């Protein structure tokens, strides 16, 4: 799907992301993460052996809620639902986004090293549907 210009602009500017997956018992669970919008997909990274990675390998349908800070006077966000896939590559973190990574340089370098070692993986989520939350006008 092609996101609306409003949704795409928001996703380029905001990285605060909550990933909703299904556990092995079928119940939902939620993981706060940092997400980057690029090339029509939301990109996350996590440890290959993490619970969230295991969940989405078993059940790749996920939801992501990308929002402003809680105390933003114009609290708003974008909900996207789609299919997640593990991408085995050390793609640059945050490149192509308007906002820099929300972590310090040391953390970003450690993440890059773990990606290169294969301990961390990139997760690409291509949306099937998207909706706006709050007032975006």
């Amino acid at each position, binding site marked *: 799907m092609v996101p609306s210009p409003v949704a795409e602009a928001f996703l380029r500017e905001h990285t*605060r992301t*909550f990933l*909703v997956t299904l556990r092995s018992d079928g119940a*939902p669970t939620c993981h706060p993460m940092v997400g980057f919008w690029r090339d029509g997909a939301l990109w996350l990274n996590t440890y290959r052996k993490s619970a969230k990675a295991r969940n989405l390998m078993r059940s790749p349908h996920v939801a992501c*809620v990308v*929002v402003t800070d809680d105390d933003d006077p114009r609290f708003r966000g974008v909900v996207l639902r789609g299919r997640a896939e593990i991408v085995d590559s050390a793609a640059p973190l945050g490149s192509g986004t308007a906002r820099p990574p929300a972590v*310090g340089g040391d953390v970003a370098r450690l993440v890059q090293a773990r990606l290169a070692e294969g301990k961390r993986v990139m997760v690409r989520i291509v949306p099937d549907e998207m909706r706006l939350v709050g007032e975006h006008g």
Partner: protein
Amino acid sequence: MPRQRIDMTPDEIDAFLAGKHVAIVGTIAMDGAPDGDPAAFSWVTRQALFVVALGGPVHRNLLRDPRVVCSVEEFPSYAGIKGVAVHGTAALLSERGGRATFRVDGARIESFDFARMRR
């Protein structure tokens, strides 16, 4: 090597959630896949309450399948990341004024505090 514990104590969870008023609520949609939405959140006598739009995605999803998670986090810096997830079953308390209020019953709580990580 055993994984280091970075979870919060019950009192720390109380203090953390007492100051939070927004949660991301994870549900299961009609198609069986996960869904999520922000909700107004409160933590009252160690019970999670949340309010969503009547007839909105969360309300509709939970009337069909009450399994739910409420996720609350803060990220002032990498070392300051904290979060709590409350898993359970959503019980509908009221539907009025265009809003539906739910309580999370049978809650199972997971928490993390990156300040506890050894570096």
